[in-house]
């Protein structure tokens, strides 16, 4: 089953869409899903990756949990039906 990315703020503008479905599925990693997300989206890739590494300001959530802080980062393994989110620093208030 494919995995859905939700994108926010300028990341959605650069990707041209707020929702993107990728082929990565259970058993693949968050990094695989990210690679597929940026594959045909050079503007988004430039914004979120620096030499293949995630830029420090970019957040990646899996089902609401920050994979960089509470899980194994881009090595985190996907489960069936995961929702991934990619966003810049939050700016509420």
């Amino acid at each position, binding site marked *: 089953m494919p995995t859905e990315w*939700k994108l*926010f*703020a*300028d990341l959605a503008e650069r990707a041209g869409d707020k929702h993107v479905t990728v082929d990565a599925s259970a058993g693949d990693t968050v990094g695989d899903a990210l690679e597929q997300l940026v594959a045909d989206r050079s503007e988004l890739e430039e914004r979120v990756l620096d030499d293949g590494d995630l830029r420090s*300001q970019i*957040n990646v*959530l899996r089902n*609401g949990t920050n994979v960089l802080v509470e899980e194994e980062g881009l090595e985190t393994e996907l489960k069936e039906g995961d929702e991934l*989110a990619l*966003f*810049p*620093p*939050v*700016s*509420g*208030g």
Partner: protein
Amino acid sequence: MHVLGVCDHGTGDDALERVVDRLVDRLEREGRVGVVRYDATIADGMQAHDSLTVGGDVSYELGADGDWAASGTGMTIESVVDQLAVDCDYAVVVGVDGLRHPTVVVGADGEAAASADENDDRVIAAVEAPGDLDSDAVLAALEDCDPHETLESLVDRVKRSPKAELSGAIATFTGRVRAKDDADDARTQYLEFEKYEGIAEERMASLKTDLESRDGVLEVELYHRTGVVEDGEDIVFVVVLAGHRGEAFRTVEDGINRLKDEVPLFKKEVTVDDEFWVHERS
């Protein structure tokens, strides 16, 4: 409080009134309902109804059991909705086009108006005749939308807490749209907030629980508007009911700081000569 607009798009008869009646009946089964009717023909100090009292810019007639009638001058739709938010569960606003709240459009042109509307997520139902109205569906759609809150409605809520008898202090924070950082700054027209639907609410709820578990803190209310918020309008409120002022002040400050750090909300700023995402400039 949830606000529901009802507007007329080409009804030739009393269809609008019948739709309003049915919606108000349905909402009254759930809670207290305020109804606001906008009528552009009321003007020049002419009051909507004949008042028994004469004189004064605002007059109230009160009965012994709390029934009342009022008339006056100088009221806007925004301020009457804000007043209702304190003690009503729902407000129904009839006859205002372009209301920023969920709206039902009535009339033959309703469907067309709904699809032509740029903010068509605002129109939650379009009905040609009263018989087409599914008031349960309207209620469900309305409950799915963000409620309307004001500083006063949140303060009133914490005062009604069962723990209020232990409270000697309420501290509040209001964040609002700043037009200028300094006198020469290009004026900000509005901010537009995007929210990570679902996750933002989860983070706000866990922040509230966290703050309420502090010693001496009795109730915490957090509220953040999304969508377009105009220059001068309020954006965010933090309200803390506490035993004493010390923990009230500390908690209100930590509350707004953590809300800004932890809740996935994204702010676009539109000034008279620019438009940008705030995180890209700070």
